[in-house]
């Protein structure tokens, strides 16, 4: 259903571009006391996608929360994107989402139908994921915001953190890059109809299928590529794993229209934040600036970045080719030699 309300006009910052930068976040959390618990398998002392708490020998709880201002004008689409993005953090841990709570901020003047459409989009994605929305909380705010707090389950021995990558692993990315740039260009009506349709299709696609395929193979590490961009999340994976990543830039699927905008300087602020965080750890080699910018582009509801055992890489890719056609094999993990964490090979 098309709505009269142009939601993005009410947003200061689009989608995951509104995320606080990785460097700033580390400072903000810096001196907070972290309590230890032997059952806390993944906590916020590590920069991972969700917390994981072991309940029994074969069951662990996965918890995450994500919300942001409108990234699409249509309320129903925005609701779908925000929900798909929030659910993704559970998939990135190898888990399955089960329960979700709405988090919502609405301007008093926003028509009731628009609010209802945002929620309808969220419910639909949650149900598609096999999760149930059981409640939530809403506040009044000049800028609309929507997202979910999601609880899921995973086997404690099958938790996929972003810090388990091993030398020799093959890196697979399941969605193309450039979503942040396309939505930024859309703010000044430059993005083509096809470009926006592609961005919406990508952002509303759950990472469920990619996760379901991934857990059947020896995947050692996984994260979803969202606000910090491929290189921001990649640096976290490399540092966490004590490894370095070698990316074959030519093999990364860069959305052609977004690349054109990158060349013209139509770039979101979040791209620069990601650059200032990750650039000291990246050796760009001969990679042209616009392509580098694409690798720093903040994604909303981006794909999964997996480090898979080389012995399983081809089999997993084969399965993804039919289930997740946008999946690409983009590089390899190597032992850390000191120095940079990511090397780009044009």
């Amino acid at each position, binding site marked *: 259903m098309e709505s009269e309300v142009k939601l993005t006009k009410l947003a*200061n910052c689009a989608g995951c571009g509104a995320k606080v930068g990785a460097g700033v976040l580390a400072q903000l959390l810096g001196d907070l006391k972290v309590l230890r618990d032997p059952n806390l398998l993944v906590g916020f002392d590590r920069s991972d996608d969700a917390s994981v708490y072991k309940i029994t020998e074969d069951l662990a709880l996965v918890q995450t929360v994500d919300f942001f201002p409108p990234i699409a004008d249509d309320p129903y689409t925005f609701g779908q994107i925000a929900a798909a993005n929030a659910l993704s953090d559970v998939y990135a841990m190898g888990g399955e989402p089960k329960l979700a709570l709405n988090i919502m901020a609405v301007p008093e003047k926003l028509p009731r139908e628009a609010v209802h459409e945002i929620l309808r989009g969220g419910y639909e994605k949650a149900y598609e994921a096999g999760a149930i929305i059981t409640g939530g909380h809403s506040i009044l705010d000049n800028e609309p915001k929507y997202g979910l707090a999601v609880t899921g389950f995973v086997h404690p021995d099958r938790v996929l953190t972003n810090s388990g990558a091993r030398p020799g692993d093959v890196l697979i990315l399941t969605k193309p890059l450039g979503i942040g740039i396309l939505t*930024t*260009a859309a*703010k*000044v009506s*430059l993005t083509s109809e096809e470009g926006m349709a592609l961005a919406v299709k990508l952002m509303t696609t759950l990472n469920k299928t990619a996760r379901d395929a991934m857990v059947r193979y020896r995947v050692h590490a996984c994260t979803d590529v969202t606000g910090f961009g491929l290189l921001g999340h990649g640096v976290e994976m490399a540092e966490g794993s004590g490894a370095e990543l070698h990316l074959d830039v030519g093999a990364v699927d860069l959305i052609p229209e977004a690349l054109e905008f*990158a*060349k*013209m*300087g*139509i*770039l*979101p*602020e979040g791209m*620069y934040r990601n650059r200032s965080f990750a650039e000291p750890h990246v050796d760009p080699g001969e990679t042209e*600036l*616009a392509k580098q*910018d694409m690798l720093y582009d903040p994604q909303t509801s981006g794909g999964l970045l997996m480090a898979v055992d080389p012995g399983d890489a081809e089999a997993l890719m084969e399965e993804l080719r039919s289930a997740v056609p946008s999946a690409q094999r983009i590089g390899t993990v190597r032992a850390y030699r000191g120095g940079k964490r990511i090397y780009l090979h044009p």
Partner: protein
Amino acid sequence: MIDARGQSCPIPVVMVQQEVKRTQPRELQVQVDSMVCVENISRYAALQGYAVTVDEDGGEYTMTLKK
């Protein structure tokens, strides 16, 4: 002189693009108030073959694009 202060990106870089397409200036001055705009406009200017100099004054930037 384009005054793009107070405009959030990507509006300033689009203003520059429109001016360049319209008048093909050999020299163009732009005022902006964020580093993001400076970076975005620098990328576009480089693509169009302009050399760019930037003067900063209290959080405001005057960019000079020259061919």
